């Protein structure tokens, strides 16, 4: 084949009304991928290239798992159209540097919203490396929480924080982190994945305590191979390309204001595409 071959979706699971899981067959990728890496996906030939973090993999089945939140046109269309037996037009990866699971003896792993998915393999990797793992996940409400059991299984301590108190403690992940840090004065590292505002709050919490803080950035990407610069982020005094230099960076060095502004770059176009899709195509199945 000259262009794309298609990658089979072997399983689909709806984790909530807006969050769904796709298990996709790609044995080579399942073998190569490490926690912290991501892939770029195109659902069909006219689609966009969107980056998605690898949430899990099964080497014996030769599959990787992606967790997607239906927010814009592309992800909603995928939610509508992709079922087990269907296929993705393009799937390429693993991209980015793997998470550094190293010497840390005690870690706090924080996943907010959709970030719950990509933090899971990192928590598991730390657990396997022998670290004491404190999991903190945040969600707006009970219905949006997923993978609680899996997370618990790889954590020594585990807290859920919800905005409305419908599950776990009522409050933001920062509350859960604060409580954990009060219980443990010897935390070596904190890993946070989630909305940029959440990651910034986590970094501010650990900064005065001097705890190493790793965040995973999700800027707008096209190629994912370092050839466009659309994913550039400010880290300390330098500009980095998140796709090839990241996606993980030192949370104390990241310029989150810049990231937040850059994420809004296509707001008008995204809105237009979504509205158009909703009025024209969304109803058609």
């Amino acid at each position: 084949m000259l262009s794309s071959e298609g990658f089979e979706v072997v399983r689909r699971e709806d984790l909530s009304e807006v969050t769904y899981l796709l298990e996709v067959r790609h044995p080579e990728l399942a073998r190569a991928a490490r926690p912290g890496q991501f892939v770029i996906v195109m659902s069909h030939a006219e689609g966009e290239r969107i980056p998605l973090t690898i949430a899990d993999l099964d080497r014996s089945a030769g599959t990787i798992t992606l967790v997607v939140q239906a927010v814009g046109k592309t992800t909603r269309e995928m939610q509508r159209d992709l079922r087990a037996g269907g296929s993705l037009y393009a799937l390429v990866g693993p991209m980015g540097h793997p998470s550094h699971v190293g010497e840390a003896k005690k870690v706090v792993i924080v996943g907010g919203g959709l970030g719950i998915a990509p933090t899971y393999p990192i928590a598991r990797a730390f657990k396997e490396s022998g670290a004491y793992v404190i999991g903190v996940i945040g969600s707006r409400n009970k219905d949006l929480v997923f993978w609680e059991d899996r997370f618990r299984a790889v954590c020594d301590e585990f807290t859920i924080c919800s905005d409305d108190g419908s599950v776990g403690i009522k409050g933001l992940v920062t509350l859960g982190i604060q409580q954990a840090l009060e219980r443990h004065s010897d935390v070596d590292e904190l890993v946070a994945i989630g909305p940029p505002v959440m990651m910034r709050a986590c970094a501010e919490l650990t900064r005065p305590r001097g705890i190493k803080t790793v965040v995973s950035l999700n800027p707008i990407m096209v190629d994912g191979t370092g050839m466009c610069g659309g994913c550039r982020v400010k880290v300390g005094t330098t500009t980095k390309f998140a796709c090839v230099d990241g996606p993980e960076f030192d949370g104390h060095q990241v310029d989150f204001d810049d990231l937040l502004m850059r994420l809004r770059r296509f707001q008008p176009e995204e809105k237009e595409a979504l509205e158009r899709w909703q009025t024209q195509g969304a109803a058609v199945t």
Partner: protein
Amino acid sequence: MAKKRTIRTIPQLRTAMTEQEPAERVRTFGEVACGYSLEEALRETERCLFCPDEPCVRGCPVGIDIPGFIQRLGERDVKGAYDVLTDTTLLPAICGRVCPQESQCEGVCTVGQTLAPVAIGRLERFVGDAAIREGWASVPFIEPAGHKVGIVGSGPAGVACAADMAKAGCAVTVFEAFQQPGGVLRYGIPDFRLPNEVLDAEIAKLARLGVTFRCNTLVGRLFTIEQMVEEMGFDAVFIAVGAGTPDFPDIPGASLNGVISANELLTRCNLMQARDFPAHDTPVGIGKRIAVVGAGNTAMDAMRVSRRLGADVMCVYRRSRTEAPARAEELHHAEQEGIDFHWLTDPIEVLDDGHHGVRGLRCRTMELGEPDASGRRRPLPVAGSEHELECDTVVFAIGTNANPILGQTSRIKLDARGYIEVDDDLATSLDGVFAGGDIVTGAATVILAMGAGRKAARSMKRYLGLVDSDVVYQETAAEDTLFGIAADRLGYARVKVPA
């Protein structure tokens, strides 16, 4: 030839090529230059003097037998002309369109000393297009040599190497990170210069030679170069991953939302078809008034794409028109299409509109001083010349660097700037691994990349102990060819040499 041609007897004027009108073409992505008809091509062949010393051949980076192909074309033997061309270049329809002929073959053409040089590029394109139309391709019977060859990157270097190795009987797989093959020819150079059908046709020829393309394959991360050699059974590997990592200048405002690289704009527009947004999902993300910084081919393409997307476009370049590195024809076309050129203008700050967007570009005027290391006169700032250009998008086309992923994932030896180090045979520090094209030279040209691909193929054949004449080419027609050359013409033996 009845009578010997002289500079006085040949047609004095270069045969013009029909072009779409500028006012029309800025509204479409259709090809600008329409190509010669057979009559026009024949008339242009009459301008060639068949110089015995063949300066044009020496001016060509890969040494195409230019008078040879022009002569056959002049005899209306278009297929014969194609055979001569494809002896050397694999992609005549592409090179005829994108080579900087004015600084290569046409730049040294004897006719050019007195009149406009022979339009070698246009003739090459004519022959290449005829071959696509007629479906010509030498698809030889290839006796499998039992060797497995892996090629990383599907730009001109990778594709040229793949063709030669396939013709030598190797099982060739080309790995490409993008969803479609072609490298810069696909994601960078726009349709109005190089239509996708031309690229598809040239690549389809490779598939007919038995080359396998595996797109969506990020070598280095999905598997490493070392794994290709040690675990995946590749007897030789050629790395041609290009140099596409864009530079951004170190000036205030470079991270604003309206600031993008030309590569991003072109990739969105060409590979991802963002010009058809919302029918294609990828947005372009440019505004109505664009400043493109730079004056090379990439800059010209970015400007002309932006123009076709309906924007007003300025070119900002710190040297003068004379130093602009773009192909002469591209610069000329850009001027025709109403690009507003600001020569000797150096950007020093991108101005924030207050919402992390762009409201303008602060620049200073330059003047040319003494020649610098590149031999071009060094631009120096004029005191008190600061001024602002109003724009909502700034596109930087100021250069690129080595693609970083292989360097990050392999022990392969790189030079200080991240390019792959090779010896004279294009062999790298890893045994059996060769490299060429932009990833070795830095951003260069299609023809040089293609030449490197073919050179690497020669080295790889030597490395694998393959001799070209080992290959049996099946004759499907009397004038069937080897590398496109009819045997009787150049006396190539096309039978297998007994071991």
